[in-house]
């Protein structure tokens, strides 16, 4: 901060010269504030808008007058030696805490290295859950593929039959909601996109869930599917969504024309197994979770189409 404060002193003059605005009221204001002794006299003399501006300006100036005399009474120098010990102790403690925090957060965002290999658990212990951070947005490389997440459903119809819907391109729906929108909602920009990332990161290449997060992500995707299918009226009158299936359609972004690079423009698909869902979204979660393994076996290897 040092630099700024000093700088501000040094530059005050510059700033004043360079600023815009009608000179009249401002100059008045400046004088008012500028000479501490006179402000009381000049303030009442001003009228209307100028008066207001003037007053606005004076107050802090006026406050500085008394500050000076009371200055010695605050801060470290005003403390008796006994209390100074306390202040130094606080200073040391805060300095240590600040350095430790910055160091640990640094190790958290740094690549795996000698120190994190040895003390990684201590770093995680401190950083999680509240100081977690990931700033690798578009790094090391920006995403170069459009991942469209699509879903379809098996609907139990009112007459007791089973009907399979077509694929709903949920990402395309999100894209349409974002297009031309200066303030895209997190519900269209992050919800499905991050849920899919969460699923991918918590499952192995065979679509098997890894740990707690794996099963959480499946339940989450199921619920998103139900929400979105419901919005699309997929079940139709009297119908009930019984099972859902996800797939992702990944298309390379065409490289810029000047790069001369060629990438395949054929989309690749990753199709997940059918998951059974219970119609009552709020009650059905836990059951869902328990039943999903069965459902997964039914569907076998979804694989990439």
């Amino acid at each position, binding site marked *: 901060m040092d*630099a*700024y*404060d000093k*700088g*501000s002193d040094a*530059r*005050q003059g510059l*700033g*004043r010269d360079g*600023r815009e605005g009608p000179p009249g009221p401002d100059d008045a*204001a*400046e004088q008012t*504030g*500028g000479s501490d002794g006179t*402000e009381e006299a000049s*303030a009442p003399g001003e009228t209307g*808008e100028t*008066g*207001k*501006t003037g*007053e606005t*300006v*004076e*107050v*802090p100036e*006026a406050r*500085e007058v*008394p500050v000076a005399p009371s*200055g010695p*009474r605050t*801060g470290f120098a*005003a*403390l*008796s030696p006994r209390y100074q010990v306390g202040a130094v102790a606080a200073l040391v403690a*805060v300095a240590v805490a*600040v350095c430790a*925090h*910055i160091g640990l*957060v640094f190790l958290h*965002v740094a690549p795996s290295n000698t120190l994190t290999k040895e003390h990684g658990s201590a770093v995680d212990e401190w950083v999680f*859950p509240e*100081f977690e*951070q*990931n*700033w690798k947005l*578009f*790094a090391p490389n*920006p*995403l170069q593929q459009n991942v469209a997440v699509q879903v379809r459903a098996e609907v139990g119809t009112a007459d007791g039959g089973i009907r399979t819907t077509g694929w709903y391109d949920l*990402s395309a729906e999100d894209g349409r909601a*974002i297009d031309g929108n200066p303030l895209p909602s*997190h*519900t269209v920009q*992050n919800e499905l*996109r991050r849920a899919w990332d969460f699923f991918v990161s918590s499952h192995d290449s065979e679509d098997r869930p890894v740990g707690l997060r794996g099963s*959480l992500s499946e339940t*989450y995707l199921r619920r998103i599917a139900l929400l979105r299918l419901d919005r699309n009226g997929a079940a139709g009158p009297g119908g009930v969504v019984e099972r859902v299936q996800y797939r992702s359609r990944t298309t390379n*972004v065409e490289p*810029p024309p000047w790069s001369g690079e060629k990438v395949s423009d054929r989309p690749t698909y990753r199709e997940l197994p059918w998951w059974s869902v219970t119609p009552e979204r709020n009650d059905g*979660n836990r059951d869902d979770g328990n039943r999903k393994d069965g459902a997964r076996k039914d569907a076998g290897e979804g694989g990439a189409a």
Partner: protein
Amino acid sequence: MNGIALSVSRGIARATGAALGPYQTAVIRIGFAATWLLFLLRELPHRDELYGPGGPWSHDLAEQMVGDNGAFTALLWSDGRAWFEIVYALAVLSSLLLLLGWRTRTVSVLFMVGVLSLQNRSVFMGDGGDNVLHLMSIYLVLTRCGQVWSLDARRARRADAARARGERVVDRVGPVLWCVFGFLLLTVTLAGGMDGDWLVPVLLWAVWAALGLWWAVGRLAEGSQPRILLDVVTNIVHNGALVVIMAEACLIYATAGWYKIQGSRWQDGTAVYYPLHLDYFSPWPALSDALAASGTMVMLITYGTVAVQVAFPFTLFNRRVKNVLLAVMMIEHAVIAVTLGLPFFSLAMIAADVVFLPTSFLRRAGGWVARGRARLPGRLSAGAPGSGRDGGDRGGGTAAVPGPRTEPGAGPGDGKDSGEDSGRDGEDAGKRGGDAGERGEGSEETHVGFRA
């Protein structure tokens, strides 16, 4: 040796004598509070889907996740709709009050609780902007971010004015807030609502205890030793938090920059082209196409982005270069807000950048705002954040703002100003008059000054 001792003592005086960067901390307080407020208002129609009991990330899922990572969220204390609505409303209210700087310390705690509660409830709804707000809401609690440009500052001025007239200033709001705060904390702690990670509960209790201490010590005489010591310690904590905030901003840029350097697309100068062609980040396809039309431009922006991000932390050692880079980064974030459709992320990043702006610029900008306000005739009677009834009052509300353009010598007073101010945060609940404002009329404020 003498030189070392001298600079050590000078360093101690600097770190303890004042809560540094009063304008910087005030403006990031306003920036983050405004970002979160605007976000919450924008998502008002979607609040249930994002954080509510009816959203796809159900209460049950959130409970399992939080049970695993121990994150703090008040939203899981109940799965009822009413509780959710209360928390959301409190989050909105706290961000508005923090923006205005009303009882800043207490409200900053409430703000943090609101941010953490919503974000930790639904971790997969957020993006980088939410992450910045998450961290900064915690750091802000430790700062004296209401020293200027706040209702607290105005209240302190009015209390001083009242005292100068020989009136007794009694603050009733502070102690009441403190008791409510303590009662809620105790209830929640006993009910097991804070059984997760220790950090946030400890922080909440520590702030509550500190507020109580401030009140107790505030009853002692002005120059008494415990009172000065508490002021010094509060300054130290503030200055430490300010360092952390700045370091955090540097880490954000350094991480983003250094990892980019390793990417082939950032090396071959096409990286910027790709996000502009992602369906999720191209709200204005025609604009994206126009921006990505020239290979040379894309290459320059790509290299420029990496260079600026990597260089930024080092430029802090040179004021002029730092300010240029700061301007470049703010412009880039403003462009990102539009082209990639990330307005709240950009706003949060700009708010973080602002902490590096020079005091002189912030004070001048404050002056423009104050003058702009004064020129809006309609606002004179309507816009007061508090209860101002007259024009002079209104001026008082923003008084701390324009002080700077008044005189060249104002700078040094800055530090002292803040030191003086610092005793007046919302935290020293007891001694200042919340009701002083009732009496403090505009014209009197010119006499403010000496504290008896």
